[in-house]
């Protein structure tokens, strides 16, 4: 619980795209990590992917239960588990977790000690990202959410440039969240098209 947090480009990108797609609403989603298979050597929590959930009403239970169940089932075979919850508040200056964020994050923490609560820092979200616009918190032993030092949160190299490019090209309009899926079942909330795009961009960036 005192370790570092690392986010892959994909993880951060999907979060940012989700927030950018619905600038007038609060948005929420979950982050995934590899299941801890008894690997106690690494103290870092590596967040590898994001599933954007809602932009309509974040505080209602039924669809959240459906989403969490489906996500757990889908990623079980890949050895991934739900490792945290993110939320971008409606108000640009508001990055404090509300009762919804706390409740859901606590629920996730029941199954996963290292669970993260990620609040998106709306003010820092822009077309030329200088730093990762996230505030990551974990539970202390007293059961309080404490935000990590900036130095403990690592983002995959080159992510900020790649994500800035995505935002400049308005890729957020292609992002699918669970609300979209419920409105149209053909929409895939795992966003494979975004994954593909990111692979291409990160490869190009490394050249």
């Amino acid at each position, binding site marked *: 619980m005192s370790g570092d947090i690392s986010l892959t480009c994909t993880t951060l990108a999907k979060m940012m795209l989700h927030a950018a797609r619905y600038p007038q609403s609060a948005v929420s989603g979950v982050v995934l990590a590899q299941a801890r298979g008894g690997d106690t050597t690494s103290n870092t929590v590596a967040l590898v992917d994001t599933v954007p959930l809602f932009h309509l009403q974040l*505080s*209602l239970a*039924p669809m959240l*239960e*459906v989403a969490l*169940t489906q996500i757990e089932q889908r990623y079980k075979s890949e050895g991934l588990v739900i490792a945290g919850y993110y939320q971008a508040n409606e108000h640009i200056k508001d990055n404090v977790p509300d009762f919804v964020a706390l409740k859901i994050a606590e629920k996730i923490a029941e199954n996963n000690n290292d669970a993260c609560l990620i609040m998106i820092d709306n003010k820092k979200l822009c077309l030329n990202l200088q730093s990762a616009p996230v505030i990551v918190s974990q539970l202390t032993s007293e059961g309080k959410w404490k935000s990590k030092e900036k130095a403990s949160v690592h983002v995959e190299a080159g992510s900020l440039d790649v994500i800035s490019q995505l935002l400049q090209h308005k890729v957020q309009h292609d992002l699918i969240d669970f609300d979209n*899926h419920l409105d149209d079942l*053909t929409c*895939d909330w*795992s966003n494979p098209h975004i994954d593909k795009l990111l692979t291409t961009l990160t490869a190009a960036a490394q050249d």
Partner: protein
Amino acid sequence: MASLDLDWEEVREQLRAWREDNTRHSEEVIDMWEYCLKHYKHKLGDERWMVEEQVVVAGLDSYRLDIAEHSLVALNEQFPGSLRVRKLKGMRLEALERFDEAMDVYDSIIRQDETNSTARKRKVAVLRGQGRIADAIKELTEYLKIFMSDGEAWQELCDLYLKEGDYSKAAFCMEELILTNPHNHLYYTRYAEIKYTQGGLDNMEIARSYFCQAAKLNPGNVRALYGLFLSCTQVSSSTKCSAQKKKETQQLATWALKEIADRYSKCRTNAMDGSKILETFGSLSITEKA
């Protein structure tokens, strides 16, 4: 983006459709205006002024204040002293975060015309924009005492109560909406979701009925079907549920799940196929919430 290869008449139709549906497409409206329709504004006739108004609002929404102000000036010249234009001036102040001045503008409109509902609603928007949710609720409740048939206002109030976590008051707002719109499956669904979230056997049974009605009104409503399945499962696993009721409810749950699986199969989606749904949710053992 260079110029849009769109026929200006098509653009006009699209903007008109969005106006009538009252949907939010601010970025697209600005693009369409700037790269196309602006050059044909003199061909729009009387419709021009509704389009300019739409452009002002879209411009303020996308923080293209240059475009918004240009149209605002044009509207002001055409309709000097108009309260409708004055409201847009208030909205511009909101966009500039000059909230107190915006409030003054709206108050001046209300002083001049007591029946003006849009200025009153803008005041609620200002409060929400400042993050003063409790004050916004107060203002909106006062508004609804006068304009009690305003569906949009009831929806907004429901939203505000949900932000505050006041589920019972949010449910009351949905009840008002259902009373005036008994065929709107979305209202039934939202009401059921709120009841489900409140928890407890009584609320769960209400949720089940309303999800059921929503699914009846619109068999394509996937949220209603999922909600129906979940609420049935909750009710039937409750210790206070009689054996007879348990059987009926479980049958309903099974039916709902099958309907959902059918929908997925019809979609032929890679995400989840029908059998996976049965597998995922069939084994769902819910913790007792009822």
